[in-house]
């Protein structure tokens, strides 16, 4: 599992490669939380090369999203593999987390309206 992050003004652009499972979930959450500094208002996460996630991984995504929400920052995920998209919908995460087709849509979805 690899997390790459790049900050563009107040936007954190993140790419996750590999698997988020019981072995890697703590590292995933730690790397994300470390990258989300106080000046970040929007977080975009590219899951195109995420090959696997389990319920422990979903829990971490929920915690990160809740933490951002409490400080009025926004998160959007994009480019999910079909199986992962399905798991997100089964969990009802698509109702509480922005899941977008691509990066442009994710940037738009997190725009201050």
């Amino acid at each position, binding site marked *: 599992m690899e997390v790459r992050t790049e900050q563009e003004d107040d936007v954190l652009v993140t790419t996750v490669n590999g698997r988020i499972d019981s*072995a890697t979930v703590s590292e995933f959450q730690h790397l994300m939380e470390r990258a989300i500094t106080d000046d970040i208002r929007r977080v975009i996460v590219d899951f195109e090369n995420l090959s*696997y996630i389990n319920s422990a991984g979903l829990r971490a995504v929920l915690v990160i999203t809740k933490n951002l929400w409490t400080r009025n920052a926004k998160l959007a995920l994009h480019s999910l593999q079909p199986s992962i998209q399905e798991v997100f919908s089964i969990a009802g995460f698509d109702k509480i987390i922005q899941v977008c087709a691509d990066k442009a849509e994710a940037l738009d979805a997190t725009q201050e309206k």
Partner: protein
Amino acid sequence: MTASTTLVIKTAIEELQKIETAVDEISGAEGWQPDIEFKIRLVLDELCTNVVNYAHRDDLDHDMTVTIESDDDEVRVEIVDDGDPFNPLEDAPEPDTESALIDRKIGGLGVYFVKTLVDDARYWRVDDKNHVALSKRRS
């Protein structure tokens, strides 16, 4: 084609990698679609992680047995453990899939994935062992 593999592993998190490897091998040999492979991997992961984390009240090493069978029509898996009596299909908490973000509770999702993603799921207990058997059609 048909293929079958049985693993006896210790109830320890680091042992779950052996199930990963077995799924890779049988999926490759049987030509599973990526979606089937993902779902079989997920249901085995969720159930076996629960056994490792919750099935035993002692700190001893226990064995658990995982069987994976595949033919042209379906994939079947069975998990056997000697932990406390527990039927995940009935006894696991219902997940919260509805609440707003800030109220959303986590928990029960792993077993909920199992129930949602397979075509048939059964539990029984015999000789002080829990058995969970799942089957999923390949198309």
